């Protein structure tokens, strides 16, 4: 069977599974549609949350980010997991007790304010739409690479599949497909990683392999990696960094952003009890950690593997000599040829010696060494995103593993897209239409509205996936910045402070939102239009060395401060709101509290 047929078989079989689940888990009521009936087991929900959370970016890009950044990019690992600790202790159990369907629902009720509800809807839509574009384009890339269809067709097929199970199944269909998608993606991610780890270190567990000895040289893998890349002028992989303030703020921004993302929060509305919401957050972390503990190993090992492929003698100790003997381009391995066809690996023989020179040509201290060797610049460009996708080929694994990776990449993109689309459509049908415009709407009409909004959101996401706007690439800055600086603080204060009132919350949200957008736009351009940035986006121009990606944490602090000060000088919330806060703090009766 050809590789193409195998890929088609794996992806086709996974689609058949998702659609089968959708038919089985068809939503019959508004409660089914928004919160999967509220009866999802905490472990099931943990698994669904992990799939909901781990996007195309986690599956495809994270290992590459870690490989290129080394220690400095550990922020992604800590930030994208540490947020669940905040969620588990500060938000999820209480919002579950509150027992309604959406995040703006809580903000609108708790702050007895249409403005607050509307602001929450706007923040939710900006954050979720930015996020969903990346999923659509990610699915497009996976389709075009593995199924040889055009990017456009790939995005349309992805949209159709999501439409089938999300529109009919609602949260119920999404929950059980996400469980299936988690299983597909974790197997796909782990198998090639185990083989690479075995090959390099002899340890079958990649997370342990990362800190084990490199088989060929008998010294620790990370020491070997440091030596090899430093010999080629790259930054030391494990070295400490100088700008610690920025690293702290970046990690914190990712954490509060994670905890404030509506599509993650609503997953915790689906479990039966408050205690289940707590357990479920722990299970979600376990399932996420299975991938996140493997990713740094994949990153480091793939990078070392690439270096020793290009410079075979780097396996030994004489780096000086090894650097002079890279392989000839005509002798390059098969997998480099495959990926050259996609344009994600490119070669340019700048010094015409027929060999592949890979080194850091931006390092000025290394320039004299390069000049002495007659190197005229780095000759092999490798896109970070291919590390995971090319892993099976690099490790010479059988064709079915490649088929599995194809299905896994698509599963990661679809599961996150579906969760985001549900968050967007429920905010439209439930918060905008049912609560703000037409409260008298019947349950049947509300569900129809929810399905139409879902269909509309899918069309919008598809359109934006086909024509990605400038902000699509700024998911980390925009989605995490907004969720962290506007939604997280007001949700938390709504639970932990009875004194927090409507004016304080609105002022805090606006401050967090505007300050974060202003800082991002200053460096990345107004509405991300290239050339409209007021300051160049380089570390020496950042205020106190804070990058625009790290500003979400500062925005959150401003939000807390302004909300606190404003609420102290304005009237305390009415008694029934204080009673509401009291009731979300105590778990008893959560099962009965869903009355709509």
């Amino acid at each position, binding site marked *: 069977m050809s590789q193409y047929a195998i890929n088609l078989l794996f992806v086709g079989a996974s689609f058949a599974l998702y659609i089968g689940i959708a038919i089985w888990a068809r939503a019959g009521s508004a409660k089914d549609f928004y919160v999967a009936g509220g009866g999802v087991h905490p472990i099931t929900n943990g698994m669904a949350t992990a799939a909901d959370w781990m996007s195309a970016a986690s599956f495809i890009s994270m290992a590459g980010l*870690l490989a290129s950044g080394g*220690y400095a990019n*550990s922020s992604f*690992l*800590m930030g994208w*997991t*540490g947020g*669940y*600790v905040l969620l*588990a*202790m*500060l938000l999820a*159990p209480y919002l579950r007790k509150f027992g309604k369907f959406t995040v703006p629902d809580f903000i609108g009720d708790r702050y007895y304010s249409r403005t607050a509800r509307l602001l929450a809807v706007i923040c939710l839509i900006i954050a979720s739409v930015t996020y969903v574009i990346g999923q659509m384009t990610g699915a497009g890339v996976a389709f075009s690479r593995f199924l040889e269809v055009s990017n456009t067709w790939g995005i349309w097929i992805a949209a159709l599949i999501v439409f089938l199970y999300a529109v009919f199944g609602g949260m119920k269909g999404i929950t059980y497909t996400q469980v299936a998608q988690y299983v597909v993606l974790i197997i796909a991610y782990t198998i090639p990683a185990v083989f690479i780890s075995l090959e390099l270190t002899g340890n079958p567990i990649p*997370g342990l392999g*990362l*800190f*084990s000895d490199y088989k060929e040289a008998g*010294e*620790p*893998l*990370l*020491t*070997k990696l*440091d030596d090899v890349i430093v010999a080629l002028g790259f930054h030391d992989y*494990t070295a*400490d960094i100088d700008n*610690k303030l920025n*690293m*702290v703020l970046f*990690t*914190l921004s990712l954490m509060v952003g994670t905890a404030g993302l509506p599509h993650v929060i609503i997953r915790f509305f689906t479990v039966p*009890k*408050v*205690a289940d919401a*707590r*357990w479920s*957050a*722990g299970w979600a*972390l*376990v399932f996420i*950690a299975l991938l*996140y*503990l493997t990713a*740094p190993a994949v990153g480091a090992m793939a990078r070392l593997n690439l270096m020793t492929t290009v410079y075979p003698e780097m396996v030994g100790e004489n780096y000086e000599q090894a650097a002079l003997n890279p392989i000839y381009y005509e002798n390059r391995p098969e997998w480099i040829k495959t990926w050259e066809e996609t344009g994600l690996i490119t070669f340019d023989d700048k010094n015409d010696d027929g060999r592949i020179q890979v080194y850091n040509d931006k390092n000025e201290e290394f320039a004299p060494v390069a000049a002495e060797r007659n190197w005229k610049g780095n000759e092999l460009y490798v896109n970070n995103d291919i590390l995971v996708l090319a892993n099976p080929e690099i490790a010479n694994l059988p064709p079915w593993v490649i088929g599995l990776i194809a299905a896994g990449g698509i599963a990661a993109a679809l599961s996150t897209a579906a969760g985001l689309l549900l968050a967007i459509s429920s905010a439209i049908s439930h918060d905008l239409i049912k609560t703000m415009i037409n409260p008298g709407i019947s349950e049947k009409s509300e569900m129809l509205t929810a399905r139409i909004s879902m269909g509309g959101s899918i069309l919008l996401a598809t359109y934006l996936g086909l024509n990605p706007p400038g902000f699509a690439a700024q998911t980390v800055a925009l989605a995490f910045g907004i969720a962290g600086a506007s939604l997280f603080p007001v949700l938390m204060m709504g639970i*932990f*402070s*009875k*004194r927090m009132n409507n004016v304080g919350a609105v002022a805090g949200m606006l401050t967090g939102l505007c300050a974060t957008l202003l800082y991002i736009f200053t460096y990345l351009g107004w509405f991300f239009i290239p050339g409209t940035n007021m300051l160049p986006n380089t570390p020496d121009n950042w205020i106190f060395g804070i990058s625009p990606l790290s500003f979400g944490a500062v925005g959150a602090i401003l939000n807390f401060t302004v909300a606190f000060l404003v609420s102290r000088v304005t009237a*305390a919330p009415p008694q029934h709101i*204080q009673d509401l806060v*009291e009731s979300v*703090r*105590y*778990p*008893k*009766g*959560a*099962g009965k509290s869903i009355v709509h």
Partner: protein
Amino acid sequence: MADEQTPKVESNDYWKSNVRLIFGCLFVWALVSYGFAILLRPLLSGIAVGGTDLGFWFAQQGSILTFIVITFFYAWRMNSLDKKYGLGE
């Protein structure tokens, strides 16, 4: 704060114990990530782990493992608090 108006003294204790527990958990949460993995890394540089130092291990694995422990610990402690105050379901 309006907390004083709570009619039931017992449930007020429940909430205070919850907040205390959260502070304890967040201390550990911050210590392993912002502490060991970032700010205190230079202090831990003497402790070697697999070709690098303990700070690097915390940044890439240790903090994630600790987060899992914290989350389950919190769920376990809170569930027994729920029972103690008769607030469980």
